[in-house]
């Protein structure tokens, strides 16, 4: 099935019109030696019914997280997705349009992205945002590149508590550039301001801190970014979680110059890691250095409000090697999902999600540490914003390996968490547990029982 509608009769008629004897003639420039003289080695064509069967069979081989009690996080979270997000984002007019190059034929996407940009600036308390990056990790590296270009400095200080994939991506990108990656070591699960003071210098382009960090701990952005700004021009990059922003302090309010984060929690299913959504926001003075598509408001000849792509002279199709980024195709449809999610949930709905995550995660942590042999990996908050507080994810020391618990969970359809050693953030006995609003108290108690019996 190739969805071609040209019939044999059409083909002959068309060839006659062109004055060519056969389709081969169009390939005349390609020497015969470069032509494939056999059929491709692919499975034979399938009917749609057959495809459906094969897809279902393949899908059955997956033991999905969403069909179980899921406590997996580590950068992708099991939040409730309102049905309206699925229905509206499935519209063919969104799914099968492309980049809105022609404004008058793309007002729908353009207005949706304009609203999305606005929502992201409000989530982050910053001034400008774009129409999406590939994912959280690439949004962060684009922020780092912006800082390098705009400050002319060469060192990048990255908190050890940043997601390991994001760290690897930063390292991979910086590898061939005249830039130096420096890691800020963590103390008791967070980055202390003293560490930043010790390592910052006047060649530091940016300080990058994730909060809630990879351990789920809430960092003290305000104090950390004060230290970052003690050097002239050094930029503060906040790696944020959009759900946390409906409840906890926001990047801009804490002094961030750039906020970058993963938009998956905003109505995007797991899908084994993608497509997700890179969120990016910055202070206004960096507007002309932003990567990606920017949507601006304008008017038509009658003065009606409308929208178009703008400040395109930053972009690769105009600037080539001098562009602010090479990004072209972005994550448009995921931005559409996220904007619908935020519209559907509203500010109180989103805050309720965040609060429920917080309370459920803390209830669970409290129950687990009452068990023999279990303890929190990091100390509890001694006082106001001194660190130690967590949002909806936390690390637990177990009396046996995390893998033992994970294996024990298989019989009960519980995914107890991620093994910190495997994730590259801790030991084999540590479990990273994430709790969302979807988990009921029964599920939380079932996990506690599993950990009690499973060790």
């Amino acid at each position, binding site marked *: *099935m190739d969805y071609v509608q040209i019939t044999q009769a059409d083909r002959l008629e068309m060839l006659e019109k062109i004055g060519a004897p056969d389709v081969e003639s169009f390939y005349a420039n390609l020497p015969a030696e470069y032509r494939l003289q056999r059929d491709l080695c692919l499975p034979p064509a399938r009917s749609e019914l057959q495809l459906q069967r094969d897809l279902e069979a393949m899908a059955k081989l997956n033991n999905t997280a969403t069909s179980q009690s899921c406590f997996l996080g580590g950068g992708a979270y099991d939040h409730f997705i309102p049905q309206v997000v699925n229905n509206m984002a499935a519209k063919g007019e969104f799914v099968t349009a492309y980049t809105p190059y022609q404004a008058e034929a793309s007002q729908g996407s353009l207005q949706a992205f*304009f609203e999305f940009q606005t929502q992201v600036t409000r989530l982050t308390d910053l001034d400008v945002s774009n129409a999406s990056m590939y994912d959280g990790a690439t949004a962060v590296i684009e922020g780092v590149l912006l800082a390098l270009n705009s400050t002319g400095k060469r060192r990048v200080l990255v908190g050890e508590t940043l997601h390991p994939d994001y760290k690897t991506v930063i390292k991979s990108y910086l590898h061939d550039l005249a830039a130096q990656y420096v890691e800020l070591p963590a103390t008791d699960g967070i980055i202390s301001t003293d560490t930043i003071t010790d390592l910052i210098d006047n060649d530091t382009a940016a300080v990058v801190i994730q909060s809630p960090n990879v351990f789920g701990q809430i960092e003290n952005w305000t104090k950390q970014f004060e230290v970052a700004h003690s050097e002239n021009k050094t930029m503060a990059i906040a790696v944020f979680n959009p759900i946390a922003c409906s409840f906890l302090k926001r990047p801009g*309010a804490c002094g961030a110059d750039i906020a970058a984060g993963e938009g998956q929690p905003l109505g995007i299913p797991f899908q084994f890691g993608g497509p997700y959504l890179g969120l990016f926001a910055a202070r206004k003075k960096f507007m002309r250095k932003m990567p990606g598509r920017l949507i601006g408001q304008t008017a038509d000849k009658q003065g009606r409000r409308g929208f178009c792509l*703008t400040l395109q002279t930053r972009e690769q199709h105009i600037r080539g090697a001098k562009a602010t980024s*090479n990004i072209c195709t972005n994550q448009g449809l995921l931005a559409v999902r996220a904007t619908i999610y935020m519209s559907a949930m509203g500010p109180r709905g989103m805050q309720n999600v965040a609060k429920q995550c917080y309370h459920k995660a803390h209830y669970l942590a*409290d129950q687990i540490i009452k068990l023999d042999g279990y303890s929190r990996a990091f100390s509890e908050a001694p006082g106001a914003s001194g660190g130690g507080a967590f949002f909806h994810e936390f690390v637990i020391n177990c009396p046996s390996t995390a893998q033992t618990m994970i294996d024990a969970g298989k019989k009960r359809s519980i995914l107890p968490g991620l093994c910190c050693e495997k994730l590259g953030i801790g030991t084999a006995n540590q479990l990273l547990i994430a709790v969302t609003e979807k988990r009921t108290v029964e599920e939380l108690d079932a996990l506690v029982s599993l950990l009690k019996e499973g060790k």
Partner: protein
Amino acid sequence: MIDPKASPKLIFEQHNPAPKTPSLDLPQLDVPEIAIDSDLLADDLLNLPEVGQLDVVRHYTALAKRNFSVDANFYPLGSCTMKFNPSINEAAASMEGFTGVHPLQDDDDAQGMLKMLHETQTWLAEIAGLDQVSLQPAAGAHGEFTALKVIRAYFNDPKGGNAPQRRKVLAPDTAHGTNPASCAMCGAGVISVPSTQDGYVDMDALREMVDGETAAMMITNPNTAGLFDGQIGEIAKILHDAGALLYLDGANMNAIVGVARPGDFGVDIMHYNTHKTFSTPHGCGGPGSGPIAVKDFLAPYLPVPQVVQNDDKTYSLKSNLPKSIGKVRSFFGQVGVLLRCWTYIAAAGPDGIRNIGETAVLNANYLAACMEDRFAMPYFSKAEKKYCAHEFITVPKDLLAKGVTLIDIAKRMIDYGIHPPTMHWPVHDCLMIEPTETESKATLDHFIKVMDTIADGIEEDAAFVKAAPYHACIDRLDEVAAARSPVLTAS
């Protein structure tokens, strides 16, 4: 007076707080509340609107109606391969068995996913005529970047290319903007290779430019003017003789799938744009996916993790590749997009894939042949039997001489329900038209009539065409004003 063309209210202008419950409610909290340090909390509720669900549905339905899309319109946007997105693709991508897999679940929980990815990898290698594939890059540009990293790692490796001085990358002057931009992001210098009058690589210039510092040449074939460059074998030889590599920008693979394979004409490394060639839809700008395919000698440098099949036929993710460039994004890749790619290739099979390539080329040549009388074409000529690949460019000089601009022509197309082609690239004042293989002859014939009618209209009353569009959801927008004083957010 209510203006029928007024754009829908912004969502922010529809704020309508319900008395008690938020727009979308959750079940009651079923655990005790725990105190939280108020220093950690935001000072206020998010400044977002609260809108009832019916109005949310109306809002996005209204916005959707204000978009052109492949589902609703002929969309011959050159270089973007706006083909039909089969319904089964979307059904596949929304099956819970696929959407519900967490990226960090154990391999044995994700065997179906890994099987799908492994097959996609294998098929893309076969279609490319290359050995190994990485599915990680998120789009074409990201694939370019990843591939350039792989090339750099290979030359930096004393046991590999062992030529760290090779940092220069060549690209034709007609290259897509992402090519030089990707080079810059890798810290590689990019040098532009001129094209001849006929639109092909200037071989004399190329020979002079290749030297001991050249890492690779990035080439698009068929090229961005819609022409097969038959010199490709010779180009490969020049590069290889000089110790450099040949990179293919695979944006135009739709012209050659099943007919010719890049690996067979000398390509060492390439990217695909699955959202073009393999019908994964474009989603208002994305997501796409930009897998790269390489010859074996470049495989050790590919990003991690990779999907491998074990001796017992199970699949796993492999991350311990010491020479790998690392990662270019989080987790595995654009898996939901790759699933649509799998579905599309699985449906087509070998004959279908070849038919896709051949029909894409037939459709483009048919349009060009029927349009060239009124729309001048620098490279196509029916009389001289100069044909195009899957797309062609017209520089409509005669029409422009009547006082209209290219934009006027494009905006007039909107009035007829057709999405305008790519403009001003790869040469100034051109329209780049790519019909794709999924359009019927009836649609192509309708398009030809529309273009004829537009040409008539320009000859009769150019001033009228200059004020197009008339039948779009909005009149022509002032893009200059938008850039002069940018408003990027609602107040």
